[in-house]
């Protein structure tokens, strides 16, 4: 396979053709934070936390899906990049309960984000949905990374019980017409729990143990 050389943060990196910037960076141990990325799923490129600055590009590019080119010059920690990452984390903190998302909490610390900055005066609390014997859905913790929908659909289970519903900020994970899970095509494989990064999906026993 052909090898590509590029520069990441001033360091020359050689990687196989077709690699993403994220893969290339990890080869050199250069850490780029991710949220919606999952090793075994198709990267949806939606959280934009892994954006980097690429010379010649008008906007920042998501490193998880941007394929390297020969001679590409990439900066992973420019002020523009850092501003975007910090702001994304601050906005997330304002819209979801991240107390059980250790990786995100770590990023918040690392990028010096202020979790209180955008927090609304009146927080709207959504309660956990306990509608089946197996697992609990607490969408107050959901960051809409969409991994649960991915695994429920084409990526793993092909059971098609979950979707992103709504639009914009009011997007949410839902079942068919919002029905309780036992009335849907859900087979309770729980593969969605496996990929949930924030504890929004949790085995019921763990949930009951925690409260």
């Amino acid at each position, binding site marked *: 396979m052909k090898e590509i050389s590029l520069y990441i943060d001033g360091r020359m990196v050689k990687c196989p053709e077709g690699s993403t910037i994220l893969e290339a960076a990890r080869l050199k141990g250069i850490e780029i934070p991710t*949220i919606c990325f999952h090793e075994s799923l198709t990267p*949806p*490129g*939606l*959280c*934009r*936390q892994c*954006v980097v600055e690429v010379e010649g590009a008008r*906007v*920042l590019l*998501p490193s998880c*899906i941007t*394929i390297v080119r020969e001679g590409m010059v990439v900066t992973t920690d420019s002020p*523009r990049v850092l*501003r*975007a990452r*910090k*702001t*994304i984390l*601050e*906005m*997330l903190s*304002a*819209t979801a309960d991240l107390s059980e998302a250790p990786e995100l909490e770590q990023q918040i610390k690392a990028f010096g984000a202020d979790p209180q*900055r*955008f927090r*609304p005066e009146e927080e709207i609390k959504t309660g956990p949905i306990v509608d089946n014997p197996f697992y609990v859905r607490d969408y107050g913790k959901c960051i*809409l990374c969409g991994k649960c929908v991915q695994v429920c*659909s084409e990526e793993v289970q092909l059971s*098609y*019980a*979950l*979707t*992103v*519903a*709504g*639009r*914009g*900020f*009011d*997007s949410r994970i*839902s*079942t*068919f*017409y919002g029905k309780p899970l036992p009335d*849907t*095509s859900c087979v309770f494989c729980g593969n969605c729990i496996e990929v949930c990064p924030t504890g929004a999906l949790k085995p019921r026993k763990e949930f009951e143990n925690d409260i």
Partner: protein
Amino acid sequence: MDSISLKPLEAFLESFEDKSRTSLLPALLKAQELFRYIPEEAAMLISEKLKVPPVHIYGVIDFYSLLHTEPVEQHHIQVCVSPVCSSRGSHKIVEALKGVEGDRRVSVEAVHCLGLCTNPPSALVNNRPVCRINADKIDELIEGKGAPPVNSSRSSHPVLTGRFASDKGKSLKSYRESGGFSGLEKALSMERGDVIDLVKNSGLLGRGGAAFPTGLKEESSARDGNSEVFIICNADESEPGTFKDRILIQKDPFSILEGMIITAYAVGSRKGYIYIRGEYASEQDRFSRVIKEAEEKNLLGEGIMGSDLNFHVEIRSGAGAYICGEETALFESIEGNRGFPRNKPPYPVNSGLFGKPTDINNVETFSYISHILSSEGTDSADLPSASGTRLFCLSGDIKRPGLYELPFGTPLSEVIYQWGGGILNEGGLGSIILGGASGSFVPPDLYDIPLDNQSLKKAGLSMGSGVIMVFDDSRPFLSILNDITSFFNHESCGKCYPCRMGTRLNHEIISRIRKEGARNGDLEKLQDIGMTMKDASLCGLGQTAATAVLSAISLEPDLFKAEVS
């Protein structure tokens, strides 16, 4: 719930040639029309017939504003609350209608721009446009009575609007009499590559907003004729302040179709779509008659005009989602999905609709292609700018709002004062937004700027889809901004983080500042959000959704700072 009969829906579903997911949106729009919402049983039936998982159908229904999971009322009224209509009191009308919702079998919905900006405020009552509505005449409005839209247009160098005054675009016959389809005839006599070269050499830039060279797109999407290539005409005109596509479809639809057929020949396509926004019911009717007429006269179908060109065009209706004007979201929509834009690359010319090469252009662009071919580009030689004329949508507090076809390079002030007649009611000029909700406030020192892409780019501006919204000095900046942020809050698809959260937080902050004044840190917050959206959003919507706010900050920074006590 009353039991409903699924029979008519079932018959409709049987009528589909392609019983697969791509027929989902047409099926759902039909169900919405039949039942005034989409009952679960209807969704299940559609799921079974089109082989789409039920939950995906729900996800699609819940994405599009025109599809409902609860019945809309007998009188379903969509009132425009985008900046121009809003400044003429449309919010009050919404309030008034809400007050009678229960007893009058009314359901009301605030929507953002119906392309009726020259007759504000406007609304759709059961999908029919009603203009210059008034909070005092609610009864008439509910019954759908009111002024019809008036489409005024003028031009110094009529090319695109050349058939408007004489109404030669009315029928296929009159269209051909006025030179229509001579461009196609000529194209068919040329080598395909030469057609592409002609378009390339014309310097035509896309008219949807991104101003990408049209010929280049044709060249990259062209295939040898053995593999599938799609042509799409993007008529999902939804940028607040834009109404040119609607008028073009009404006044000269055949020129659009001709442009599509020429392009089909050039790139080797057999199938085209025109995606018209769902709110444009009468334009959809108009265009479907156009297609039918063209098919009857062998201008569409197999062996067009005796050549070996085979090309079919299908109309697709949007369902109330601004984002579907973004090309990849539009593909998703035709494919039967939520209108989520795709990450690029791959670009549409390589992998667009159904993963095939796709040449997608705006209505105005296709129309222009027909003129390039029919005139060999010579007519525009006497124009001040080589790239010809373009359509400007002038609206707001202006004496003569309307559609203006003017040469590139016409100064902004000339459009407003000479063509538009200046500010309404002899008021003072307050602000100008160029490019629609995703455009910017023009700094006062640039009011004379020539409207061409280079000059605007240099000044950090863009004419986008040709929108010029003018506000007099009584319109508070923050009110206009509030309408704009409300628009994006409503229209962000929610896929990527910066836009999903940024559009909401932007709106929350602007609306609070408008009510209570700014607090410490607001300016920095808006800048961080705005820059993050601009730099990191997935698609053009998110990347431009904060443009107006950022431009307002640079014009009037004090508005966003806490008062020093």
